[in-house]
């Protein structure tokens, strides 16, 4: 299988899967098998690309010329490879979990759910492998549209309101800011292909213009949830939990921060940004988002809302690290995309399992639940520790690299922000774990057991991955370093 | 303006007057037939606009023979014949519409028609 065929298959398999899922509407077991087969197939195809990318090749595929001089084209590079790996691996796990959750909660419209999921993954891979800004934008908007039916899955008034905020914020930022930024880049640079070192170097832009263009991109990539354009994320919590997991861990927010890092590295280039001081506002905005979101998380009683704001905060870790512009921090940013994904998906799976088994949604209701749902809460603890950054969980490595990178960049404010938010993370996660295991459950409560088997299996897989990632970190780390230009490129 | 300008260009003054009068009638009158009349007056002014300048002082019809040297321009006449036909067709169509409107609404006053549309009706 040549890399080009692999790229085509990586997008074609989820689309074919979507068609297959729709066709198997009447046979739920067959339908679920199609999902799992498609996920496994896609992961296998993506795996075949890892070797060539690590060796330094950048497989490219030109599909068609959409506008004169601009085509729909794919080009696999280390960051995209990492994103694709994470997304395709987690789709398998998310599908297992979805089966348990959707059946356990007797959800309606399951076929539509699985079809949109598959299409969302196709768009995600399109974003990961995009070779230029137009292709990225095409699949980015596609992802927004395809996840709308997922967010509004329940179809009630609350879902409709949540869907409006979701779509409103994401489409506003992408159409008003991101599209303008892309067209402006085309007008100024004559190309919108991604290139190592950036494409704006020769454009002769003033510092202010570079800063302004950067702002258009950063705020235009609404999926990265930089404040004040973060409201869509908590609003999307009306969706069923597997969708939240998809949004937060597998696809949507990851697409956002992926795009942020890709733009910084391949459109502007770290050298250009470091040289003009025009990007100095970005660490400030990211740092503010980290802290503000952590404070809101601390004050949220609703578990999913707390996790949502935790995600907002963690995403800005990636933005902050990327905005420090030193190779180590850029590698840290890429690695954190993977580390946060496995940790967060564990937490969301746990939240969904808690809801399925006990219909509890608030943190204050979780006293003693660890006794009834030991596996779930153990996994939750693992995920929480990873996000706080405790070794040997996955989050520790990326956070450590971020601290190092900030020190290298002499950005002491960033170090302070990272330290403070680590404490805040502990403050809003550890009490949950403590209450779950060490407090007695409220009296007079109906007894319940663990979540459905499939959900627990998925939970265990991701928790294990969270713990195991540092031991199998060679591939993600190598990709991250290759992105940043450290070591073999 | 000199007397010559006013007097010598009386055709154009008539044209402008008809143009403006026609437009005024269209806008200011609510009766559909009166609107059509205004429209016709407006179109008539255009005929004058074309034919007037075509006439040369001392010009005759284009007769190819001895003694006829200065011709008035015959082309505007041709154009205006076409325009008259168009105007007649428009007027006929407009009147046919007015007849149908009368059948459907019972009135040809624009404000009454709009009132009747605003009232809730039993069936669409």
């Amino acid at each position, binding site marked *: 299988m040549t890399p080009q065929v692999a790229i085509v298959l990586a997008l074609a398999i989820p689309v074919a899967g979507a068609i297959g899922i729709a066709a198997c509407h009447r046979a739920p077991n067959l339908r679920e098998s199609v999902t799992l087969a498609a996920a496994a197939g896609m992961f296998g195809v993506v795996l075949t690309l890892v070797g060539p990318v690590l060796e330094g090749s950048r497989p490219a595929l030109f599909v*068609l*010329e*959409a*506008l*004169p001089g601009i085509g*729909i084209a794919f080009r696999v590079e280390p960051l995209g490879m990492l994103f694709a790996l994470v997304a395709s691996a987690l789709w398998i796990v998310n599908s297992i979990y979805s089966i348990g959750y959707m059946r356990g909660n007797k959800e309606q419209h399951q076929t539509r759910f699985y079809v949109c999921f598959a299409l969302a993954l196709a768009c995600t891979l399109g974003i990961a492998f995009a070779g230029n800004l*137009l292709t990225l*934008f*095409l699949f980015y*908007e*596609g992802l927004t*549209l395809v996840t709308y*039916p997922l967010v509004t899955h329940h*179809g009630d008034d609350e*879902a409709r309101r949540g*869907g409006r905020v979701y*779509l409103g914020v994401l*489409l*506003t930022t992408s*159409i*008003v800011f991101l*599209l*303008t930024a892309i*067209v*402006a880049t*085309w*007008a100024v640079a004559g190309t919108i292909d991604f290139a190592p070192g950036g494409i704006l170097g020769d454009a002769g832009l003033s510092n202010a213009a570079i800063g302004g263009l950067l702002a258009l991109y950063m705020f235009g990539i609404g999926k990265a949830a930089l404040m004040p354009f973060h409201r869509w994320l908590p609003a999307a919590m009306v969706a069923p939990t597997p969708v939240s997991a998809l949004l937060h861990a597998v696809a949507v927010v990851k697409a956002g921060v992926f795009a942020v890092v890709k733009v910084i590295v391949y459109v502007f280039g770290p050298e250009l940004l470091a040289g003009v001081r025009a990007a100095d506002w970005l660490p400030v905005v990211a740092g503010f988002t980290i802290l503000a979101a952590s404070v809101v998380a601390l004050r949220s009683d609703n578990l999913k809302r707390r996790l949502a704001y935790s995600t907002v905060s963690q995403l800005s870790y990636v933005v902050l690290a990327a905005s420090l512009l030193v190779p180590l921090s850029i590698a840290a940013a890429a690695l954190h995309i993977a580390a946060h994904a496995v940790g967060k998906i564990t937490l969301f799976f746990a939240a969904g399992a808690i809801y399925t088994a006990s219909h509890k949604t608030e943190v204050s209701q979780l006293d003693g639940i660890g006794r009834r749902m030991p596996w779930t809460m153990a996994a939750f603890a693992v995920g929480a520790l990873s996000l706080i950054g405790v070794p040997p969980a996955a989050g520790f490595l990326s956070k450590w690299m971020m601290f190092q990178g900030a020190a290298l960049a002499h950005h002491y404010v960033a170090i302070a922000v990272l330290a403070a938010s680590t404490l805040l993370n502990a403050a809003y996660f550890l009490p949950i774990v403590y209450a779950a295991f060490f407090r007695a459950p409220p009296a007079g409560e109906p007894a319940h057991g663990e979540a459905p088997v499939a959900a627990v299996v998925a939970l265990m897989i991701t928790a294990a991955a969270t713990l195991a990632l540092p031991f199998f970190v060679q591939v993600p780390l190598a990709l991250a370093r290759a992105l940043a230009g450290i070591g073999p490129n | 303006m000199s007397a010559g300008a006013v007097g010598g260009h009386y055709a154009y003054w008539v044209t402008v007057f008809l*143009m403006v009068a026609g437009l005024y009638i*269209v806008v200011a009158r609510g009766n*559909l037939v009166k*609107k*059509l009349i205004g*429209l016709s007056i*407006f*179109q008539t002014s*255009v005929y004058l*606009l*074309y034919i007037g*300048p075509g006439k040369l002082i001392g010009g005759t019809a284009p007769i190819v023979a001895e003694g006829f040297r200065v011709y008035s321009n015959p*082309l*505007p006449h041709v*154009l205006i014949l*076409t*325009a008259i036909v*168009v105007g007649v*067709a*428009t007027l006929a*169509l*407009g009147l046919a*519409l*007015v007849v*149908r*409107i009368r059948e*459907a*609404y019972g009135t040809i006053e*624009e404000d009454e*028609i*709009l009132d009747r*549309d605003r009232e809730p009706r039993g069936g*669409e």
Partner: protein
Amino acid sequence: MIRAQLPALLVVVPLLAAPVIVLARRAALAWALALAASWSSFAIAIALFLQVRAAGVVSYAMGSWPPPWGIEYRIDALGAFVLVLVAGMGAVVAPYMRRSAAAEVPGERLYLFYAMYMLCLAGLLGIVATGDAFNLFVFLEIASLSTYVLIALGRDRRSLLAAFQYLIMGTIGATFYVIGVGLLYLMTGTLNIADMAARLPAVTETRPLVAAAAFVTVGISLKLALFPLHFWLPNAYTYAPSAVTAFLAATATKVSVYVLLRYFFTIFGASPAFAEVPFQEALLALSAIAIVTASLVAVYQPDMKRMLAYSSVAQIGYITLGIAMANRAGLTGAIVHLFNHGITKGALFLLLGGVAMRAGRASFDCLAGLGRAMPLTSFGIVIGGLSLIGIPGTAGFVSKWYLVLGAIERGEWWLAVLVVGSSLIAVAYVWRFVEAAYLQPPGPASPRPGEAPLALLVPAWLLVGACVWFGLSTSFNVGGAATAGQLLLGAR
């Protein structure tokens, strides 16, 4: 040689089909003749497009009278592009009409409906094909008069008043145009457009020229539904039969844009006298107002046909905005949007016609739960809506790209913000449909589950597919628009 006679045949075939249909009387035969004529015109339009691509300009002397004394048909890159759009829409709508018109027009009048449709098609094609200013007026009135009749054949009695109002406003517009042509004839002595452009620089007295330009612009703007002369459009589109609305939305205003382009660039561009008149600024301002206010009004309409009509006024604003920008990118954006909006609105109105056939109306209470009742129709409307918003992958995105590029190249950032910001208003009114169709349970006015007949679905989905196709593979629409734009700017 048929090839040499193609420009004339383009107009003559539908023109002759009309009286033959009147003689034929039977509805099925009338439809078959209309279909044959529409498809022939489309084939001829494509052949002409290829000829123009090879030769640059196709010129045809009507009756072998040489120009500039005789009437000349002159088709250049812009004209060929618009011809393909108009004839193409005619070819797609004709098969649709068989069931749609039968449902909405009284049976004994169907043959007259088809005859009027043929006249309308002939008129629109003639406007684009002709190179003579007065001949343009004749075809303009042929198209307009037949349009008034077509609109009046709608089911609702309000279509009569809508047709009457359109008649009044349209005739005033055409008469203004003819006044302008008269003044131009006075000053240049010719009616042939190309000849006029050649003679204009020599004219020293500029006041009549400026007056002529003003009259022509106002007259055509009435036909174009440029704000604030757009008042006839919402009623006309809402109450006309569905097939008529679809055909008109895609062609009539676009042909008027063609006339505006022809005058602005080919004729007025030739003389330096017009440089002082602030046409560009005025057009820019009016376009901006049109885009914003019409989009906002569209959001609050209770009836989806009316909503799309106001959306059309806004989208025409985009086209005139691109014209006002007058640089390569802006003009390419305007001309490509002429095409893209034509196929998008055509698709949307054809799909709504299917809804009207099943539910009787297209008001939002009928659309509740449409996603279940008519899934293919709803999904098609969603895709058309995405093209209106300008989501990448659809034709509408391509237009937005060029308009934003044109604004940025002029350095006018507020224009770029206007274009992208107004797309958000489009999200608001498109999402009204999405929420009604997919997130609301069916109400008492909703149609029973069951798709529209194939005769309606196939043409509509052909256009929906075109929306996506021309959004991704843009060599025809962007290439044609860019060539036309370059030609126009070069003539300046």
